[in-house]
């Protein structure tokens, strides 16, 4: 019993140690990762990335602009939602046809046939 308790104490110490060790390693890794991959056009990127991506904006200290930030975030979110909604409602086209269509489209843009181009758009909406 006491031995068990002792054992469990050791497990706790060891376990929490390992968890903290691993997490600290990960957090170092993350800072390096973000540092070495930092780039400009992040906002657009992450907005495209998916519905749950938040655009990091250097946030001001003024309250009013706090609101602005929240608004910006919400807008991006909503747009992302919207994006996704389209992504979902748009036909999951057969790859094949996609390829063929894609190719023909190229040909047509080269020569520009208004009719075809119009239908094209319809096709993608």
């Amino acid at each position, binding site marked *: *019993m006491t031995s*068990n*308790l002792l*054992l*469990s*104490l050791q*497990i*706790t110490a*060891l*376990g*929490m140690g*390992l*968890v*903290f*060790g*691993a*997490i*600290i*390693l*990960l*957090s*170092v*890794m*993350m*800072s390096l*990762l*973000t*540092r070495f*991959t*930092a*780039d400009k056009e*992040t906002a657009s*990127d*992450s907005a*495209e*990335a*998916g519905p*749950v*991506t*938040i655009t*990091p*904006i*250097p*946030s001001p*200290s003024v*309250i009013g602009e*706090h*609101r602005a*930030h*929240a608004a910006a975030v919400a807008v991006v979110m909503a747009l992302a939602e919207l994006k996704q909604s389209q*992504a*979902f409602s748009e036909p*999951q086209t057969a790859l094949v046809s996609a390829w063929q269509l894609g190719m023909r489209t190229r040909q047509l843009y080269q020569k520009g046939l208004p009719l075809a181009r119009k239908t094209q758009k319809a096709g993608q909406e």
Partner: protein
Amino acid sequence: MNLGELLPELVKGLSNFTLGNAVMITVSLVLIYLAIAKEIEPVLLLPIGFGCMLANIPLSGMTTAEGMMGALYGGIRTEIFPLLIFVGVGAMIDFSPLLSQPKMALLGAAGQFGIFGTLMLAIVLGFPLNEAASIGVIGAIDGPTSIYVASKLAPELLAPIAVAAYSYMSLIPIIQPPLMKLLTTKKERMIRMDYAPKPVSQTALVLFPVLITLVVGLLVPDATPLISMLMLGNLLKISGVVDRLSKAAQNEIINIATLFLGLTIGATMSAASFLNLDTGKVLLLGLIAFALDTIVGLLFGKLMMFLSGGKINPLIGAAGISAFPMAGRIAAKMALDEDPDNFILMHAMGSNTAGQLGSVIAGGVLLAIVSKLI
């Protein structure tokens, strides 16, 4: 022949119905009620409740090895269901708040103390090590991890652990706020956190799941299945080049796995296996683990507050327990209730996603240590 001898066959259902079945069916009805009327994690509690009901209809044959539930149980024995759910969850998680503030990760480690604290408590209460460890993991309020660990270490406790892990998720708005108020001052809860993260590039977001899988996999091999499937889902989504697979992960795969997992877990809740003192202890200890996780998370949050000279709002510590994404949401809500202009959601989600990583790692660490000791 004489049909009389058929009578026992015809009333076998009723004649084999036990008081235990009645109790468990009541339990199943409560679960279904909570799922539908209270909308408590309906996607899981509804199938679990229904499966529980089926498991307590005598001689239906559904829970035998040849029956449907018996066949579906293969999805738990091979851990495929919880892992597929993680693929879907991964495709729904956004790690950019964490990536933009890596030090938040520490909160995800502190938030796992309850797991080990409860393990100790369970040992004291006389549970064998393998069961004690499985019970502790409930504290992460992270269904797939709890189920994965339990099915490896203590399958006999799978049902109560799964039920606890999923139903406690819904207790977060009830359990956590009081603890937050108890352990933090209004002044602390009102701390504003400047949100000036390092910008996160698409490249970083794509490299993240790959690196996490490698690092965690090499450090804690037993955590590889959980962490890798979570990261695979995330990579499918964030890579942006495999929309078909990402959508499959977020829809058909997770939906089917969830329905089957719920039914199968529920089907293990037969009176014989579920109605005993241990179940009660497990549920209670799970609650304690949950509370301990929250408390230690908050205290660690306060520590970081002091170290940062009051720049960190301790509330986000409570989000480190995992319980993704509810805990992060509640922490932000608490701050908002004190001051309608105090937006700490980004920070809370950072801490919350770190908690998700932390609980998976803790689960793997426990698997490694315990499977070696028993």
